[in-house]
């Protein structure tokens, strides 16, 4: 009995991975097939990108601030407080900026996508769309993937910048450090591999957020309860995958560039 349960669960898992891979690959290939839903892409970019601006700016600023606060107190023990700027910019650009921004956007948008598409599934709107001759993957999923990947890329850059500013504000106004020194160490210590790492990650994270959100939305079953379940699963799985992927990208790029 237990074996049968494990067997069934394993089959469900493999089947879900297969469905996810199929949905993602078809939606990506739809980018290169006509018709291209330009207005839908812009609408999603507005919802995902512009809509996420306040939370990204707020979290970025305070994360930078708390990073400065924590690292300054540790560096102080070694008389190396001058390196606060370097530590903040390293952490923000390579790790905290991409990961926290992705997690915030995931909480806001993966859930939104799953609930919106899930509601459309349970009210037969997706079937109606197919019956009207429109491919829902092309009309609904592709614009969300494209918009999330592009907008998350810029949101992360913004979050990094605001985070470094936040760290600078705390360092200067609360820790009494020199502003020129803070920004000089922040900027001068950065090298190409650091920037690359910070810019590669949001591309993967954006893809994960949109595909997981859409995948759980499109496989919703069981009415309003099902929509709630899909929404939760979308946030949980996109968050897990973001952190796992972050580790894998970091490991790979550190392996290649040595930093």
């Amino acid at each position, binding site marked *: 009995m237990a074996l049968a349960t494990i067997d069934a669960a394993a089959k469900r898992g493999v089947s879900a991975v297969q469905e996810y891979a199929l949905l993602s690959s078809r939606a990506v290939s739809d980018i290169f097939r006509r018709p291209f839903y330009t207005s839908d892409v812009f609408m999603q970019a507005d919802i995902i990108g512009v809509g996420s601006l306040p939370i990204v700016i707020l979290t970025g600023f305070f994360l930078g601030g708390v990073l400065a606060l924590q690292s300054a107190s540790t560096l102080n023990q070694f008389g190396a407080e001058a390196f606060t700027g370097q530590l903040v910019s390293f952490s923000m650009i390579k790790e905290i900026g991409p990961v926290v921004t992705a997690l915030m956007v995931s909480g806001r948008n993966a859930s939104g996508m799953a609930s919106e598409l899930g509601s459309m599934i349970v*009210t037969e709107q997706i*079937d*109606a769309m*197919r019956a*009207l*001759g429109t491919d829902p993957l092309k009309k609904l999923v592709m614009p969300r993937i494209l918009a999330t990947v592009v907008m998350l890329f810029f949101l992360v850059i913004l979050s990094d910048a605001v985070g470094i500013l936040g760290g600078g504000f705390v360092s200067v106004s609360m820790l009494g450090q020199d502003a020129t020194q803070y920004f000089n160490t922040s900027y001068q210590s950065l090298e190409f591999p650091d920037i690359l790492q910070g810019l590669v990650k949001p591309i993967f994270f954006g893809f994960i957020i949109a595909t997981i959100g859409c995948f759980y939305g499109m496989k919703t079953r069981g009415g309003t309860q099902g929509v709630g379940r899909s929404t939760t699963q979308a946030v949980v799985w996109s968050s897990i995958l973001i952190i796992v992927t972050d580790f894998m990208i970091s490991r790979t790029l550190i392996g290649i560039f040595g930093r």
Partner: protein
Amino acid sequence: MTQVGGNRVTPAPQASGAPSEPVVIFDDVSIAFEQKPVLENISFQVHPGEMRILLGPAGVGKSVLLKLTNGLLRPDSGRIFVFGKEISAMHEQDLFELRGAIGTVFQEGALFDSLTVRDNVAYRLSEEHLPEDEITARATEALRFVELEQTLDKFPSELSGGMRRRVAIARAIVTNPKLILYDSPTGGLDPITSTTIIELVMKQRDVSHTSSIVVTHRLQDAFVLAMHHFDRAQNKMVPLPPHQTDTNTTFLMLHQGRLVFDGTTAELIHSTDPFIREYIS
């Protein structure tokens, strides 16, 4: 064209007068969900201008049969032809094109709740990138057909259940499809609203001569469709003379996943099959 008694009459031929190809052919179609057979060995045809009323108890697979007809589901075995093309073997991308010529009215309307009535009705036209003026004109015309042209800028949530169903009919007919699939168009509606919807379905049959499959479990609706016709002069449905039925309206009945009846109204009424007798009594 009407018939007296139970004689099956060949559906209305096309303008050329030559016998025409069936619009829909089901050839020994079966489908199962999670190893549970839902439809088994279903074979029937729909001819041009013909209305096939699909009867059967709830959960027997009537909606599944409709979804097979427009390719939303694929059969496990058997072949389905629509407009002469084997849709059961077609690629999903090609099906999207074909579905443009099929109108579907879903059970609960399935209107896009974030779009206005105008945008819902005009959805297909917008996808074809027609000029805005033409889109508005055609959407208004379709809404006038269902007598709802005043709701153009409303959202579906602002309409009653019956009105939403009428908008769904307008959305289905706006592209002048050659085939319309109605999935329980009167399900869950009060008798007066149901009659309005049935009148619209009949109007589409008798004015536009569109082929259709009507799924219903309401016998009253089915017999109203079979025993009335739409009078354009009076702009309402009127009963056919006694003992006459609409020749283009025929019946299919499903029972336990199998097609147990395929024939005319008279054949249905005079059937000796115990299940059919019990169902229509």
